[in-house]
């Protein structure tokens, strides 16, 4: 079977501190990987390495057997990363944010698709308000709408449930389920219990 995303012997050094080393795992189609560990153990650093935003001190990240640093754009077409920051502009409305983000991502979303995504995330009625006036949880939902629009296979989510209420967490779980059923992959960090019945792996950083 073809391994989709593979981490080989990753090590990360921040300043003088060695956060982790010898981290290896692989994620196949339809699988979730949850990265666990206490605060400061390097979860975010690991996710950033997996995306190619930072370079690992040792080791490599491979997509279908090829190093992501050589694949670059080809890998970027498969990846969607949502980090701590939402990546939305406060001065633009939710619709503008999503439309322009999808254009920057190279796959412009139609107005109907954006409307459907916003409604799916429970943001009906907030479409044309500048995001500055939305709450933290609503901004997070706008960011998560990109999951529905981008059509990427690998989702890397850093604390996706931050600031979300119970209803939104439920919606997110459903969204993740559908993505996994369609053969997608998810890597996430969260301090919340994740009830994902699909094949789930864990990596613990200590």
């Amino acid at each position: 079977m073809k391994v989709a995303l593979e981490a080989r012997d990753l090590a990360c050094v921040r300043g003088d501190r060695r956060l982790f080393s010898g981290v290896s795992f692989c994620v196949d189609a339809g699988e979730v990987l949850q990265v666990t560990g206490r605060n400061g153990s390097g979860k975010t650093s690991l996710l950033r390495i997996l995306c190619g935003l930072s370079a690992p001190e040792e080791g490599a990240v491979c997509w279908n057997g090829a190093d992501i640093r050589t694949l670059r754009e080809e890998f970027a077409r498969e990846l969607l990363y949502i980090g701590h920051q939402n990546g939305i502009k406060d001065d633009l409305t939710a619709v503008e944010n999503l439309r322009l983000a999808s254009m920057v991502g190279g796959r412009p979303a139609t107005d109907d698709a954006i409307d459907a995504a916003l409604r799916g995330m429970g943001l009906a009625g907030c479409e044309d308000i500048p995001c500055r006036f939305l709450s933290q949880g609503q901004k997070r939902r706008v960011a998560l709408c990109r999951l529905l629009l981008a059509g990427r296979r690998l989702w890397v989510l850093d604390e996706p449930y931050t600031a979300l209420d119970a209803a939104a967490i439920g919606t997110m779980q459903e969204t993740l389920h559908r993505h996994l059923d369609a053969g997608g992959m998810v890597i996430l960090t969260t301090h919340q219990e994740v009830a994902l019945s699909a094949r789930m792996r864990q990596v613990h950083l200590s």
Partner: protein
Amino acid sequence: MWTTIRGVLIRDLLLAVRRRQDILTAVLFFVIVVTLFPLGVGPEPAVLRDIAPGVVWVAALLATLLSLDRLFAADLRDGTLEQMLLAPQPLALLVLAKILAHWIVAGLPLVLMAPLLGLQLGLGWEELQVLMAALLLGTPVLSLIGAIGAALTLGLRGGVLIALLVLPLYVPTLILGTGAVENQMAGLSPEAHLSLLGALLLLALFLAPWAAAAALRIMVD
């Protein structure tokens, strides 16, 4: 590829429209700096005419500098920069789109304001035309070089640091830009200076986006 570039361009222009005061601040700064010179140097028309090209150009450099630290810093804060680094297109192209937006917002208004200020300092019609042509070729160079500085000082708290880094690099543009107008005033052809300015623009157009993109990757790591 064009979709990505258009996305970046439209986003930055839309943001500029939403925060009009930022554009106005830079243009007003430009106007005020130039207006201070007659007050400081005295109203002698011959003197003002002589220093006019230099004054307008130095004011243009400073006004450009004023808007540079916003170029990537806001994107870093809200996470859109990360998304740009992960876009399925070469980062240099996205950076080029951002620089183009910066020029339209910060450089083009200066070009359009310059004739008025030149007139105020006593430049003739033909000299004004050369001044505008020189600024039209020169201000994009300022945005391009400035982008490298903005990328290199990303995340560092220093509006002054970027000035120290970028202003020396602006010297060739300044010399060629003022030289073109001065030649025209002396009755010589400004063509040589303008051609060199054009060459500088082409060079910066090819090199600056790559350099800024490389700097961004390092600073975000």
